[in-house]
């Protein structure tokens, strides 16, 4: 288990598939987390492995990837997987905290849900 600071954001793949939300391509574009090489190794992961992200606000299973990102930070593309775990508090601004949420990351054998299953689970 590892604790990281989670940020969400846009990617080219997410943008290119955003008008095809129910497609497999969209799901692939947003259902992963990028960890630093060091954090990736410390969890004993290999490409294609799944991890469970848990925060105070929920949990979600996604695929793990190595990314060019500082140790202790993790990136997840914006979308329904990210939104299962980000902080919905808006501090009076209307804007949830999509970036900067502490998250526990652990290797899991649980399956990655489809976007339909994610919606059903809410």
């Amino acid at each position, binding site marked *: 288990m590892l604790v990281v600071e989670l940020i969400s954001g846009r990617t080219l793949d997410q*943008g290119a598939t955003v008008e095809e939300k*129910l497609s497999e391509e969209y799901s692939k574009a947003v259902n992963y987390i990028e960890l630093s090489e060091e954090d990736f190794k410390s969890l004993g992961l290999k490409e294609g492995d799944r991890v469970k992200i848990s925060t105070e606000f929920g949990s979600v299973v996604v695929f793990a990837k190595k990314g060019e990102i500082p140790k202790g930070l993790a990136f997840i593309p914006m979308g329904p997987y990210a939104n299962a775990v980000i902080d919905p508090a808006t*501090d009076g601004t*209307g804007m949830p905290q999509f*970036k900067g949420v502490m998250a526990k990351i652990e290797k899991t054998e649980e399956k990655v849900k489809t976007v339909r299953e994610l919606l059903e689970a*809410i």
Partner: protein
Amino acid sequence: MEDVICTFCGSVCDDGEFDAEKKKVKKFCRLGSAKFSEKERIKAPMVDGKEVSYETAIEKAAEILVNAKKPLLYGWASTANEAIRLGVILAEKLRGVYDQCASVCHAPGTLAVIEEGLPGATLGSVKNRADVVVFWGSNPAEAHPRHGMRYSISAKGLLIKDRKQRKVVVVDVRPTKTAKMADLFIQVKPGYDYAVISALRAILSGNADVVPSDVGGVAKEKLLQLAEMMKNAKYGAIFYGLGVTQSRGRDRNVENAIKLIQLLNRTTRWVIWPMRGHYNVVGAGEVPAWEVGYQYAIDFSRGYPRFSPAEFSAVEVLKRKDCDAALIVASDPAAHFPAAAVKHLKQIPVIQIDPFPNMTTLLAKVVIPSAVYGIEAEGTAYRMDGIPLRVKKILETSYWTDEKILEEILKRVEKLKG
């Protein structure tokens, strides 16, 4: 057809070439090409999953909206100003809440602008004049792929002729694709933008001695280097992104950045501008601003407009279960809102108007498919810098436009309300 206008991101590129036979667009980036490619559509209007006529779906939609005590009317960033105008009128007639996608995107910047104003410029001005461009918490290489080439990185301007004459700085929490194109990359610890901006303000106002050796993970030497670059610019531009508005500090980060620009403008010329996401998210704010005085989070339940993001932004309204129906136009809150807000959306009757099936379609009671502006319909959109552009119709369609659908809903609502 030439000079086709892209209706994907806020850059609203206006130089595309569309091959009607192959149904492909040239010159646009990967996002623009995806926008113009054929994809799955909502086939027909639906009520409870059953295909119906436009008229039946509109009748049902009007009925739901009229019977609601306080409907939420949300979305609007990927449609034309003509449709948005009708959405604002509809929200007022229904005594509902109007909110738009900026609410979960750049709206904190709007709060900062209310406090400080916005020393801005058009993208053309940046292209022609800016010798220093700073991308702060923004990553155009992935979100606005042609912004750099057309306006801000390798753009060939009148006075700043090429990349060699322009310095590019990226401030971010990770080495993004845009950071790789920069002359200077400043890596900030997440949530420390406010502190880093304050340190730059201290240095530029002659108080470098009070700045500690490290601010938000950035060495003082690097801050001094950036401050020097900013001070020596003839014309500088900060383009900020969601890295600033969606992290700790939100509106206060933008407010502090505007104060930094004000300080720089005592000795040189600087501008600051948000990297707006959807092609007409500016219109989703400007249209209600010229209709009723506010950009987002507007409540009409008392018969006059009230603005309060803490109460009337879509996420807050949904979390508080303070709406009993929703009209979602050109947006997908079921995918883009936090789960705590989506929960209530699943409990209330939802009407969706959109060209494409998405997660909101899965929970909507009434689904009304629409034409795609810029491809199947013409209309007006504001580019990210507020320049209005007339987007074109390049293909015929049998889908109704958002404008026509909303016009019909409005007529039915007026009739039902008597």
